[in-house]
């Protein structure tokens, strides 16, 4: 049911004039993709520095809260640009993207990464400030930092897999993969 709804939504988006313009433009899609990837340096770059600091791998003599506070703004600006360009990339090729297994895994990992970030922030606010100048953060924050690193590595890796066609709807007959990727027509044909 959900796959049918998503496919219909994708087909509706694909029929939009602006969606077709984004793909038809000689440079528009490439510029979007380049901006999406290059903004990694601001978003993931800032996030990883915060995580590395929590683990004591970097800048141990600067308080953890200073690192987190100062890098929060550039990180959020980076993520905002990534989400806007990411949405436009999906908007340009909606059916192809919605039926990509890697895109779906990426979205799940993204949600998990944001839940983790929310918990991490709440724990940081609740934590006793005495650790702030320690070279390593308390255990629960370190776990959050490792989870953040793992989840974002997964997000980037899945993003990199999207252009590859290993498990595209017309490349596999495995019903589980077809269901997970939302290949509605191919599932019916099985």
């Amino acid at each position, binding site marked *: 049911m959900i796959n049918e709804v998503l496919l219909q939504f994708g087909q509706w988006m694909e029929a939009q004039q602006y969606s077709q313009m984004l793909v038809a433009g000689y440079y528009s899609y490439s510029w979007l993709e380049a901006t999406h990837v290059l903004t990694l*340096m601001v978003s993931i770059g800032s996030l990883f520095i915060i995580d590395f600091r929590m683990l004591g791998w970097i800048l141990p003599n600067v308080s953890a809260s*200073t690192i987190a506070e100062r890098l929060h703004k550039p990180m959020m600006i980076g993520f905002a640009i990534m989400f806007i360009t990411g949405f436009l990339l999906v908007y340009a090729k909606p059916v192809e993207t919605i039926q990509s297994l890697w895109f779906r895994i990426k979205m799940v990992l993204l949600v998990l990464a944001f839940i983790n970030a929310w918990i991490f922030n709440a724990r940081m606010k609740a934590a006793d400030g005495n650790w702030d100048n320690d070279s390593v953060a308390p255990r629960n924050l370190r776990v959050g930092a490792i989870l953040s690193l793992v989840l974002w590595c997964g997000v980037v890796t899945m993003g990199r897999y999207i252009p590859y066609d290993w498990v595209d709807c017309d490349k596999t007959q495995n019903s589980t993969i077809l269901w997970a990727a939302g290949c509605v027509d191919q599932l019916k044909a099985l």
Partner: protein
Amino acid sequence: MFSTILSQYKTTLTVFLVLLVIVGLEVLQVRAAIYPSLLPAFEWLKNSTPLGYIGTTYGSIYATVQAMHLLAMGTLGGLVLTTDLRLLGVMFRSTPSEVISNGTHKAFKVALIVAVLTGIFCAAGVADKVYYMPVFWVKMLALAAGAAFVFLVKQPLLNSKPHSEINPWIIRGMAITSILVWFTVAASGRWIGFS
């Protein structure tokens, strides 16, 4: 007097000399003459090395290493921006710039090593293709320039004395140059994918 200048500005003069040699090589068309002789090395990298074999045979490994390359470049970019924006006085103003530049340099080196190693693997799989791409050579030159700038100019100068004793315009110029060079490396790398 000449020897005093030489000893005081050894690194600057070395960089200037290297730049002069590069311009000389270009003017005398030495680079153009060397360029064709590099093709066999690129063909060997793709056809006769394990890197080339894995890169062309196992798409999933190739894509995973590409992702690692992206992550390394993303981390490197974050470290460069953090350090250079501090040098420009935009971020971390309450923290001494020496602390930030020294504290990020080790991680910068690790990110650079990972980016270079994964980059060699990525290039090996498509070596005969990237050889003909001007943007690939732009990336290589920018990478060489970036590494030379960091290790021969920026770090030696930042470590030579307290930053307050260095002319602030030199520090700002260095930070802007660093951001521009590393952005060129990343942007040209992205453009390889479109070529």
